[in-house]
């Protein structure tokens, strides 16, 4: 009896958290999405979402999130692989992780300085005769900075997956006639897929709703679902439409979660025998 009531006691913080910060906000967002600008009940917001403007917005949001995730993955996988082979791998990993502890806004502002008209990159361009270039407020700078921000989150799960891989499996693959590339494709990649999926999850989903980097680095040239929500709430004051976009954003997140779900098979053990 004692333990049962004690367990109920432990449940309180979790229950309160879920109720206050998960259930209530989602319910509120759902509720507001059903009202128009004048406060009358409507499904118009949902109809609007399927108009070409918002569909294009959604599509572009996905496209940028896809690009950010892709480039992060292309850089993170080889990096993580290389790190697991180094002598002081935990130290090197830490050096990559540390910048992610610094406030996002600070780092973003730093890039405004770096990419700006009077920044070091343009100074270099001027010096070698290319001349001043507009770097800030371009697709390139937006993706570059986003990738920079997300890379540590992509590296960490992939590093862990590769590090857990039983090295005897690589020997076994080589022993059975596979060259390095085939070994990677048939053994290493499938067995570290869960790490890759985690990495995609923690990159793609937040990238869908980026709004600060879009504002500061892309200068509103890139509009994502995140910036759209912000504008609906703060600029247009159309809470109903903002909430509707948020509802879809949550929906997309769930769909992505389903797609990147970890399968048990071969995942946890990663080849080591119990």
């Amino acid at each position, binding site marked *: 009896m004692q333990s049962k009531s004690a367990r109920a006691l432990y449940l309180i913080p979790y229950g309160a958290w879920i109720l206050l910060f998960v259930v209530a906000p989602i319910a509120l967002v759902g509720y507001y999405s059903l009202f128009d600008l004048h406060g009358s009940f409507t499904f118009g917001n949902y109809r609007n979402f399927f108009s070409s403007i918002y569909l294009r917005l959604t599509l572009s949001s996905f496209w940028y999130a896809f690009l950010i995730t892709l480039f992060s993955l292309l850089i993170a996988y080889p990096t993580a692989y290389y790190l697991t082979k180094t002598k002081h791998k935990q130290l090197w990993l830490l050096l990559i992780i540390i910048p992610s502890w610094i406030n996002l806004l600070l780092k973003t502002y730093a890039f405004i300085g770096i990419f700006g008209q009077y920044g070091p990159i343009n100074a270099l361009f001027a010096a070698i005769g290319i001349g001043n270039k507009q770097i800030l407020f371009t697709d390139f700078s937006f993706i570059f900075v986003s990738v920079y921000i997300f890379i540590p989150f992509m590296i960490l799960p992939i590093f862990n997956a590769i590090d857990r891989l039983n090295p005897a499996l690589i*020997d*076994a693959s080589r022993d059975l006639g596979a060259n390095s590339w085939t070994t990677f494709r048939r053994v290493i990649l499938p067995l570290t897929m869960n790490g890759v999926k985690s990495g995609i999850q923690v990159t793609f989903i937040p990238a869908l709703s980026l709004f600060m980097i879009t504002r500061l680095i892309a200068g509103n040239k890139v509009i994502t679902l995140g910036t759209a929500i912000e504008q609906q709430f703060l600029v247009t004051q159309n809470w109903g439409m903002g909430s509707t976009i948020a509802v879809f954003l949550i929906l997309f997140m769930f769909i992505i979660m389903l797609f990147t779900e970890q399968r048990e098979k071969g995942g946890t053990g990663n080849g080591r025998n119990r």
Partner: protein
Amino acid sequence: MTKQPIIRFDGVSKRYGDDATILDDISFEMERGKFYTLLGPSGCGKTTILRLIAGFIEPTAGQILFDGKNINDVPPNERQVNTVFQDYALFPHLNVFENVAFGLRIKKVKGPEVKRRVEEALRFVNLEGYGGREISEMSGGQRQRVAIARAIVNDPEVILLDEPLSALDLKLRTEMQYELRELQQRLGKTFIFVTHDQEEALAMSDEIFVMNAGQIIQSGTPIDIYDEPISRFVADFIGESNIVDGVMIRDQLVLFAGKEFECVDAGLDPNEKIEVVIRPEDLEITSPEKGKLVVTVDTQLFRGVHYELSTYDKDGNEWLVHSTKKAQVGDEIGLDFDPEAIHVMRLNESEEDFDRRLESYEVTGHAE
């Protein structure tokens, strides 16, 4: 030499950095179609030899020849060798069938052919019908068989086995010893088996290489090594033994435990200091009057097949006796043994000298 050895090591050394020498100038030959065992305590370099043959590591010095050709620089995927790993190293993301088929798929063997060969290999290791199972659903013994099937399906010249039985329980281990030996004879391939378990080595091998500290101490058939260990290390490592100091008075006469005994060893210097080995099962319990040695029983253990007696003679030498007869703790008993049971070991004799000496008196000396 008419037959080309399948594997030859020519002065092979392996060092890591400057300090750690794992293998020290090793040379040996292995014939086609035999069951070899590398036997030694952990850290003796036996697994290193296996990994050198598989190609996972390269020798620091010397040559490794496969079928007469130097393979020092040949990567593992191009060697006609397959390994059964210590922890099996089965691919957890593939089922049993695909694990076994892995090597064939790499070689782009056609689908129906893959199916036929995988099923044949699974039948070989008594796992018919298990192809669709996941690795996680297989028991330790079954995984072991999958690992073997995965190696033999590629039809390699040499199969390397790295302590493959160490994770199994005793009964299964004994069973697998029989199976492995039988499998090797059916396939007619060269098996190179690494173990620290002397019983495994004795039961399965055509030839055993006893190793210690990066060197091969003695090589020979299980009977040779058991009956004629070259040194205290080998005698101690392989089976149980009584080892006492003694003096070789002359050929066929040895002094130990304060008495002179007739023996069959020869070719040593007169009055040379030696060590004498007598196996516990060669000692027979008799009355103190009839016994060649008189000892007092200190402890007695029932081992199932036999009693194991720990006894001491009056000089304080311990004599281990394996006997089906029972004795009383504290009693004085006699121990009887044949001259052939005495094996004399020279101190620090090299394997070549040892073999030469053995040959010299075995041909002329006594008839076996």
